[in-house]
């Protein structure tokens, strides 16, 4: 591309960016121009604790080219230690790096880190950021110092915080409310935590806590405003379960038939839940949120076996489902399934503990 063309495109891009920022009260993950077809995958690999080997990999579908150390190549520095979550919001990608105590704000198209936000409490101690959600020009981060922190997506600075229960994990935003699962994971010796915090989005204050069961993990909502969550239990006498709090209600109900649910994702009112029963290969249970019933015990229809599924993500454009596999020690693979559960392709040894995938 010659210089003039580059400059011209930059102008257009800049204009789009400005226009998008001015009109930025789109809910969910709408970007400044949804692509018709996914061309690139950005894969977050959590890494192992204490190893500084969290990575961001980039896979170009058309060229079948993978750059395993994309963040390192672009920014000349590693991502850090244990990156737990990644979110595409607008034109930026937000990455919560748990043990490094940072939040990287990355420009989605170039991979360049625009800001490294230090997530530390007064006194310099690491807040340990975990999971992300976004709404109305703000990004919300749960941290293991029992807080939810709000970051402005224009100034890229922290502009608010609220105290929640112990060791908050999953976070979802719907109908002017933020729902946070208080896992109490670090407090396992004393019985975890068992609540869901309900936070008012506008005032950023906690309205109430709903008792949901021991060690809640992931929270997601459907289009009706029903809140779905997984409760992981205590690996002993209290089992895990998949539960729902219907919109307007304050009590939780168990959805039976799903053994040891782990992470899950809701796309187009269907929940894809990793079921991690002891001793058998993980499977993906599909639950219809509108009809309120399980439609499949195993999404994967072609017999592909994945012993341990670390995470599941759905491409909203194509409906393809991505499952990250791991053995927690060596690099894991990323599987791509079409909406009928047949494997399309598999990327091997992408990184250690591959997790969230973001689409462009």
């Amino acid at each position: 591309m010659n210089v003039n063309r580059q400059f011209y495109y930059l102008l257009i891009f800049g204009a789009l960016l400005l226009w998008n920022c001015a009109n930025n009260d789109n809910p969910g993950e709408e970007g400044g121009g949804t692509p018709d077809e996914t061309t690139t995958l950005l894969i977050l690999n959590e890494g192992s604790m204490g190893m500084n080997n969290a990575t961001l990999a980039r896979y170009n579908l058309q060229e079948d080219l993978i750059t395993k150390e994309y963040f390192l190549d672009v920014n000349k520095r590693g991502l850090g230690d244990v990156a737990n979550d990644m979110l595409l919001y607008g034109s930026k990608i937000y990455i919560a790096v748990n043990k490094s105590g940072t939040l990287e704000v990355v420009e989605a198209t170039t991979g360049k880190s625009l800001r490294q936000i230090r997530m530390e409490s007064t006194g310099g101690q690491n807040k340990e950021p975990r999971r992300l959600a976004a709404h109305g020009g703000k990004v919300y981060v749960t941290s293991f110092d029992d807080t939810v922190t709000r970051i402005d997506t224009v100034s890229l600075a922290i502009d608010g915080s609220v105290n929640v229960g112990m060791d908050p994990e999953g976070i979802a935003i719907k109908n002017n409310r933020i729902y946070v699962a208080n896992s109490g994971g670090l407090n396992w010796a004393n019985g975890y935590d068992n609540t869901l915090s309900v936070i008012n989005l506008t005032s950023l204050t906690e309205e109430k806590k709903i008792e949901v069961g021991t060690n809640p993990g992931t929270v997601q909502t459907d289009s009706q405003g029903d809140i779905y969550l997984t409760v992981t239990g205590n690996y002993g006498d209290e089992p895990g379960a998949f539960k729902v709090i219907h919109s307007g209600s304050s009590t939780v109900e168990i959805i039976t038939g799903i053994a040891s649910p782990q992470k899950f994702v809701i796309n187009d009112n269907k929940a894809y839940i990793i079921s991690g029963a002891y001793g058998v290969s993980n499977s993906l249970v599909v639950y219809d949120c509108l009809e309120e019933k399980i439609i499949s015990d195993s999404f994967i229809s072609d017999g592909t076996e994945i012993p341990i599924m670390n995470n599941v993500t759905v491409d909203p454009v194509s409906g393809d489902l991505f499952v990250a596999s791991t053995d927690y020690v060596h690099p894991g693979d990323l599987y791509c399934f079409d909406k009928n559960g047949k494997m399309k392709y598999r990327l091997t040894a992408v990184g250690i503990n591959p997790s969230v995938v973001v689409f462009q």
Partner: protein
Amino acid sequence: MRQFIQSVCLLALITSIAPPEAAAQSVSDTIGLPEVVITEQLSDREMRATAPRHILTGDEIGQLNALQLSDAVKHLPGVTIRDYGGIGGLKTISVRSLGAHHTAVSYNGIALSDQQTGQIDIGRFSLDNVEQLTLHYGQDDRIFRPARTFAAASALEITTVAPHFTGESRISGKATMRGGSFGLFNPSLLLNGMLSEKVSATLSGEWMRSRGDYPYLLRYGPSGSDSTSSERRINGDVENMRLESSLHARFTAHSRGDLRLYYYNAERGLPGATIYYNTLQDAGQRLWEKNFFLQGHLAHAFSRRWELQADGKYQRNHLHYLDPTYLGAEGKVEDLFTQYERYGSLSAHYRPFPNLSFAASSDLISATLHANRQGFATPTRLTSHSVIATKWVSERLLVTASLLRTQTFESAEHGVAGTNRLRLSPYLSASYKPLHAHDLRLRAFYKKSFRLPTFNDLYYPQVGVRSLLPEDAEQFNIGLTLGRSPATHLKQITLTADLYHNRVDNKIVAFPTGNLHQWSMVNVGKVIINGADLSLESLMQLTGKIMLQTGGSYSWQDATDRTDPRQVNYGHQLPYTPPHSGSAHASLGFHQLQLAYTLIWSGTRYSNGYNDTAYRMEGYTDHSLSLQQSFSTRLGQLTLIGEALNLAGRNYEIVRNYPMPGRSYRLTLSFHL
């Protein structure tokens, strides 16, 4: 790498240009220096050994620029020390890639024990009162020793200075004062006293303190263009104290005994891995240790044919761990562990003919672990070892064979106990001298051994599995040793070369069983190791007054995982196991002056079982230099030593994200009474 090989070849070339001479044991007479006599006798023992054995004498250790035990042992071939950096960092020893659990460490003949972790932190031991270090690969040829010493795949023996007196004096000793970079302060005192004709006693005390706050360069990526930042290691301070006392008695010409008391008290910070953008991550973790043992040894020779010995030990280890920054409800993690061990052994030796001898020994060990955890099992393990061994010695042939039987009885105060185990461990070895005129020996050994699951493996909350099997290890070794005393200038040259094939089966690994939070200890690993160890030592008299002692070692290790072909790391080199590594040392002695140079070198290795460029760790070299001057005074000998360590100043890493100190200095002043 090429340069290293070139210099070794050059050294070998120089030292081999000498006319062959008939094997002469008369070298010692012409030199007349006591150290050389000892060295030669011990190197003789190394040469004849049926299984590789490397001995480091006190003087040789003095040439290695070593402060802690781990520094000296790094020079031995086939040894991988996992060193977490600084004086206080954890250091464990693995021999020929079998793993740290398969190496036993003994102190004056009796095993040091840690049933909780199964590993000994050899960084805990200073070299101040160490007279000799011996590393046995496989097994010792001497069969008259406690049954427990036959159990491990390899054994590191630490022998402390025995009381010796010169002339008419009834008191001898040594006082040392050491200081160095990063706040190192280390005084020690050793006193020997002759209480009577038959009894002597020693008293030894040492205190060490170090700030450990060395600067290091934190690299945010592997290539030269990646960003870096200058940091300082925090929370790496160490303070420890050692007190030892022993009584040695020679009751008659045929019986002797000794009693030893040992107390060690240490506090150190655990700096943790250097986490990007958060180097304060483990700023508060602390570890306290209080270790104590009392051990005794009695030996009596009934006749020229019969000998009997008894050993006993009582050990108490206390460990206190604190993490004050843990974000749980209590805001901290605090663990207290106390281990007790009682040990007794009876051994007999029968020598019906000069060439043939038999030995039998039986040991009983009782170990208990207490912890401050809620509902902790408080396990006890009773282990019984019984061995029968035989040895044939002649001028040309040396053969040893042994069979060890081990039985464990597990019990626990709460909950289910581990499964009792019974194991038989055979051993066979031989060395043969084919040519009469040359000191060349061929050797081979086979050993089958095992290591029991540790208390952590069995009882750790949520992860421990009671039914774990022991890990099995098999070793095959063939090698040769060559010793020559060729010329007046080249006093001695020795070469050892060994090829080995090891297997580990039922390796105990932590395995995720369904999700990140449900791990389990499983006997699932299989490892196959092929390797070669080479060592070369030479002693040269350059002129009438100048002695040059040089040596080097080289190791090749091909240690691959063979657990499951479906796993991505199948056939890959084990993490932290460099295929190529080596060491070298040279010491020039002129009257009372000594200049010593040492080199520790490692090739590339991987920090993950999956050998990808993303996990490749570059090789490193660690050069050190020291100058030592002794003065003879009326009262005794005064020695001044100045050392410069890691001359290249690079913060290399043995374990990923645990940098070593860069260039540092030490000054030691010691006075021998």
